[in-house]
């Protein structure tokens, strides 16, 4: 009995050894792309878009005959929305699993932790969902940004407000890396161009009751309300403004107001609300319409900017690998630094540090249940309906 057990172990060990030595020689060995995604925890809901975009990209690449003549596969772990776990998993992906390419996780904090690991092993990481300019001020080389830099998130609002002769502006922003950069950038620009900033406050993630803050902003008589916020807070800021009978002439509710769920939650109250978006399915970027089509077909839902940004980021990654012609990380990094590319997501162009400088946000407005692009002027699909009528005068 005991002997047989030993034999079994020996066979297994031999098999493992054989697998380890033989398979690289066979040319069909796939290129493994590794990533950790927040499949559980507080970021899990949005993170599924990122994962689905990764899978769609893998399908598309393989349909085109693969990368460098080899098929591509995806290896994904769950970081539980926790940066520490994320760092551990990238360590595992690189050291244990020896993946060929490293793709980013969802969310800035996890990207920050993971990038440290990649930097150590000199592995290029295209992090499609990493925002926050601080990440690219650390002297890292191997982290590539494809998302809109946060300092350019909201700046369009200032032009739109001035066009209508509005005078005062108030800010309420989620206390996060990205918005701590985005908000001061708009506030500075507003002040420079003659708008008076009457209130500027950050609230921690998870805040649900803004009534006191909005009462204060209402008392201060702000014409423009900029809510630097995401999904739940975007809805809440609008709903609670209405409840308190506060009618800003321009209500801008951040990226969170650009998702379909925003309109679904608010119905007619969403009319006239402005939002910023990284991406729109109507954008005339190359391959955009086809991407939207394929995504819908595969997953049965509309892609959002998380999906498009991830896909666009992977397009850039793919272009970098093809340009480098090998999996040598330094060659890929160099290629990624030189590329100036139009992806479905928009322009891709990075600075020396790997931070994005090519991509800008668009500003949209809900008009008749649809999002119309207002800014920048060149891509506008409709005229701004401003100032917004007071709540009391709406049907």
């Amino acid at each position, binding site marked *: 009995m005991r002997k047989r057990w030993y034999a079994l172990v020996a066979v297994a060990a031999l098999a493992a050894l054989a697998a380890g030595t033989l398979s690289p020689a066979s040319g069909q060995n796939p290129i493994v792309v590794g990533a950790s995604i927040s*499949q*559980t925890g507080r970021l899990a809901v949005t993170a599924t878009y990122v994962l689905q975009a990764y899978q769609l990209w893998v399908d598309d690449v393989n349909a085109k005959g693969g990368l460098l003549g080899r098929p591509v596969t995806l290896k994904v772990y*769950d970081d*539980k929305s*926790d*940066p*520490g776990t994320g*760092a*551990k998993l990238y*360590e*595992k992906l690189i*050291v*244990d699993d020896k993946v060929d390419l490293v793709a980013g996780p969802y969310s800035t*904090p996890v990207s*920050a*932790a993971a*990038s*440290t690991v990649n*930097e*150590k092993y000199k592995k290029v990481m295209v992090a499609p969902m990493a925002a*926050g300019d*601080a*990440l690219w001020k*650390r002297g*890292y080389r191997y982290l590539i940004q494809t998302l809109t830099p946060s300092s350019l998130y909201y700046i369009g609002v200032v032009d739109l407000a001035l066009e209508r002769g509005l005078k005062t502006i108030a800010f309420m922003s*989620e*206390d*996060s*890396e990205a918005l*701590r*950069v985005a908000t001061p950038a708009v506030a500075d620009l507003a002040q420079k161009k003659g708008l008076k900033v009457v209130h500027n406050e*950050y609230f*921690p*993630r998870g805040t649900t009751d803004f009534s006191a803050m909005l009462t204060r902003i209402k008392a201060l008589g702000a014409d423009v309300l900029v809510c630097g916020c995401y999904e739940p807070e975007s809805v809440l800021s609008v709903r609670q403004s209405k409840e308190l009978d506060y009618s800003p002439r321009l209500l801008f509710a951040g990226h969170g107001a650009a998702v379909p769920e925003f309109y679904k939650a608010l119905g007619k109250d969403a009319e006239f609300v402005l939002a910023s978006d990284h991406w729109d399915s109507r954008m005339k970027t190359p391959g955009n319409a086809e991407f939207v089509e394929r995504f819908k077909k595969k997953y049965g839902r509309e892609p959002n900017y998380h999906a498009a940004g991830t896909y666009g980021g992977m397009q850039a990654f793919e272009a970098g690998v093809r340009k480098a012609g090998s999996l040598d990380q330094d060659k890929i990094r160099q290629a990624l630094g030189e590329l100036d590319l139009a992806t479905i997501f928009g322009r891709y162009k990075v600075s020396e540090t790997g931070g994005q400088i090519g991509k800008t946000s668009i500003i949209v407005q809900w008009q008749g249940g649809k999002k119309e692009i207002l800014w920048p002027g060149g891509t506008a699909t409709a005229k701004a309906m401003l100032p917004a009528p007071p709540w009391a005068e709406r049907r």
Partner: protein
Amino acid sequence: MPRALLVGLALAGAGAVPLVANNYVLSVLISLAMFTGLAYAWNIISGYTGYLSFGQVTFFGVGAYTAAVLIIKLHVAWPLAALAGGLLAALLSLPLGWIMLRLRGPYFAIGMLGLSRIAERIAFAWEPVTDGGRGLYLPPVLDLRAVYWAVVLVAAALVGITSLLDNSRFGLRLLAIREDEGGADNLGINTTLAKLQAFVLSAFFPGVLGGIYAWHVSYVDPVTAFATQIDLTAIVAVLLGGAGTVWGPLIGGVTLSVLAEVLWARFPFIHTALFGALVIVTVLFLPKGLADAFRQRGWLAPGRAFLRRLAARPAPLEAAPE
């Protein structure tokens, strides 16, 4: 003698791990050692002294932020910064402990939970120092070995201190407070002082570990530095292993990570529920933890042997007391 040899061997073995293990294994061991250390620290105030705290993570976060700020702004070497994190946590624990330890039972538990939430909010609001919700970025850690050694050193120090505590009159005073604080008071034990000493110990080490954590993940933000989950893991480890014992936290910590690897990794969606169920099952069926079960089977020597050893020496007994 063999005891000292055993300890030396264990330490040498633990210290030699980085020579053979890769970085992934190291990072797993770092978090194991970190949580074991936190469990030991929690064990002093909650296991020995009986003051169940749901908020020791306050000191972990304070340590993490202190170290991060020192490293970024003053370019202090990280081991010193982590030590400073522990010292500040200990310093802060003096007034906080003096206030909070006036509360007993569930009031202390909930008061500490409230304290940790306030600490998190302060980290959000104190933007000039903490950068608010943006968090602080530290330089990357290129060599995990030093981090590993630091964490293992702290964890080993905690095992050592707990072992000393378990065999000291100070430890007996803490246990007396746990068993009957009023009774201890009436026997001349300065309970306020003893509790405060235990509390400071239970704050210093999480502070140091928080500092090392900040360096290890090279990013600190309010939500992760003051996460209730951190306390939760330590609490479950101690309850499972056996509160108020020398080996309980280690047994609990190791059991928990084994469970996490072999069982829970497969059921990530019910991870929290399994934690909760473990708490309930432990309280109902294993109130004294695994350490006690091991002792009853003779796998583990009973604790607090020092009095028994002394008492075992033959001594002439006189009929009347002094």
